[in-house]
């Protein structure tokens, strides 16, 4: 690994964002955390992002709306998106919105890491 793969985490609960960041950094990923959907454009413009992990419910723009927007935009449509939610019916809503992967909260660390690995490697 000559260069660390960069992952963007979006969750409006800062504790969750921090927890995922710590997990992924321990496993060698580079992680950017944000709690607002509006900041995503700026982040994607400034950094190379290999994967976006986002909560379905975000302050401001909804996670599902953001997912649809990113998948429709040619410059961002190649970025795999993993959506997470504690909402009971979230899986279908997220996959319908174009998410590549969905994991329900609370998740298992080994499970989320293996899925992240698959998404990142497949993309490369």
């Amino acid at each position, binding site marked *: 690994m000559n260069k660390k793969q960069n992952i963007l985490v979006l969750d409006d609960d800062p504790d969750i964002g921090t927890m*995922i960041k710590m997990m992924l950094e321990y496993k060698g990923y580079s992680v950017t955390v944000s709690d607002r959907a509006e900041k995503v454009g700026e982040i994607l413009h400034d950094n190379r992002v290999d994967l976006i992990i986002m909560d379905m419910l975000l*302050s401001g723009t909804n996670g599902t709306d953001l997912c649809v927007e990113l998948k429709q935009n040619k410059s961002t449509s190649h970025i795999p998106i993993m959506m997470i939610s504690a909402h009971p019916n979230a899986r279908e809503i997220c996959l319908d919105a174009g998410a590549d992967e969905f994991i329900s909260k609370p998740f298992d660390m080994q499970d989320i890491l293996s899925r992240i690995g698959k998404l990142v490697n497949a993309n490369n």
Partner: protein
Amino acid sequence: MDNFFTRLSLPAKLLLLILVPIALIIYLSVGIYIEKSKKVELLKGYIDRINVSGDFSDLINALQIERRHSFAYGLKKDIDSRAQLEAQRPVTDQAVKRIEQRKDSTLKNFLDYTFLKDLKNIRKKIDSGASQDVAMQYYTTTIFRLNTLNTIVPVGNNRYLKPVFNDLTAQKILSEMATYLGIIRANFYNVFFTKQNMAGTLYGLAGVNDIFKSYEEEFLAKASPPTLEEYERIRNTTSLKPTLDYISRVFQKFSFDSLYDAEEWWKTSGEGTDQLKGLQQDLMRHVKATMNEVYNAEVASRDMTLILLVGALVFVFAIMAYTTHVISKMLRRLNDAADKIAEGAVGVELKNVSTDVIGRLAKSILKIDSNNKQLTEAADAIGKGNFDIPFQARGNDDVLGIAILKMKDNLRRFTLEIEKSKEQFRQVADNAPAMIWMTDENKLCNFVNKEWLKFTGRKREDEMGYGWIEGMHPEDYSHCAEIFDDAFAERKVYSLEYRFKREDEAYRWLSETGAPRYSTEGKFEGYIGTCIDIHEMKVHEQRKDEFIKMASHELKTPVTSIKGHVQLLLTVYGDHLQNRQQFPPEAMEISLSTIDKQIVKLNRLMSELLDLSRIDTGKLELSMQNFNLNHLVAETVEDVQQTTKHHIQIQNNADCRVFGDKDRIAQAMLNILTNAIKYSPRMNSIEVTIFQPAENVVSVSVTDYGIGIEKKDQEKIFERFYRVEGKSEQTYPGFGIGLFIASEIIQRHNGAIKVESKKGEGSTFTLTLPVNGF
């Protein structure tokens, strides 16, 4: 016999009835006709007799004239007498011949009897110079004999023939008188001519004169008044007068006191005798004319009788035929009317009814009809529910009328009972605190109660049939129709929920239960159902569902955080030592403190749920004590200040002690402060003020400069499970029951909680409690 007569047709019966009088009429009429004919025959016989008598009278006259001329010739042997004699003889022969031609059996030997067979011989003797006495004797005897043949047949009391008979008798007497007068005057002529044998002649003629006198007396007694009048005239004004006066004087004195010139006497007395004969012939003609009149009248009377008889028969038959026709026609009309009534019709018409038994029958039929009509109208009116129609039975025998009256009373009673029971049902249905509806067996709505109409604000007729469906929410229709149709087909009870338009156009959730209804005979009559407005419950339920979803989400968030950190720590500690160095002690501290913080959060959430459950079941217990509110506010703010970047500033404008559950009031304060922080993420200033708005109360207000609350939501935020809707707000964590619990706690302390807010500018929540508690 009776049976036979009964079966006869009406014309035959009438014919039989009329046959007897007709036969009687015919019998009597024929009798009268025969009687008339007999009378005519009788008259004819009389007329023949009179004609015969006339012929005899003519012959007697002719013989008297011939006797006069024969006597004169026998006496004088002159040419004049001779010429007159010659002229008279053929007249006499003609008269004899007429009688011979009658061929009357009674006159068979009259020539012998009257010596007329000797007439030719006598004439020869006279021609050859026989004396006047020979002539006088012969002619007088013959005339006498003829008079005896010429009898008058008595007519009895026949009123037609009585005057004729008198005239006939009178003329016969006149004829006799002329005969005897002729004898007297001839003998007087002889005396005057010869001037001899005067006394002998008087003696000889005295008997003749007596006969003449007795005939005259008979004439005066029997002749009719007009005849007597005529006789008086000729007796006093004509030559008869000097003739009879002279004879009377001679026989009175019994001597010829003066002598007439023979020729003068012959002339005068001849004229006088002719006067008698003229009267006799006038009477005879009158008799003949009268007889002919009577005869013709009788013939006419007989013929009239025949005509009347035939006419009467024709008239009787015509009347009978017409009567039969009229009666048959009337009976036929009665029959038709009776048939109509028998078929159940009313309103028959019978005009021009007579006053006889048929007329009375017609009136009876009309009366039956009018009664039927009355009964029909009454029954019809009663059938339509008009029980006020005036109707009376016609008497104890009016079975139908009494039955209808009973029917009317029973129907009225039943109708009243039905109306009463309907009214009861309507009252029950209308007063029931639920919407009630009914359908018929074809699913068509036929009843809704007052409560239903109050709900929809529509008219009853608008809801009938399928009208009510207009109120149903279009999204709910197909689902409800399916359930209802299935249940209806199987006659099952069903329940369903749908949205229905209220009078204010708002759709409300209704819970409907429907069940089949049956008549007392077990016949299916449709469905009956109730609808209850469950809108509040339904909304509450939906909110509860959302709350549960949200609660599970809220609970999962700290669990996710805790699980993530614990698994990270486990991974780190199970890893190789050199790998473990990548996880610095600061990171571990973050993990552990996060775990600790999340456990506190989890604990708080669970406490809230527990409190909610306690409030719901009424088991929220308060542990009351007297404490300083300012201290409690300060402690709570201090605790909160440690978890947030917001700067919380306290302003103590009052210093108060209250009596209450210190922990619960702290919990309420905490919930309000937490919300203030949560809903003002961009701002960092929160103000807490303690003040006394009135003497016995104290208030704590918490002001933030956050997103604020819209006016429509300000009341509802204190309700359980209520969260302000909206995308951006959805992500604020928490159960949304914080304000509800705070409100419940403050209310339990007889306090109040209120909010002042403006969207986008911030909110101020104010708790108000009584000073020193209760």
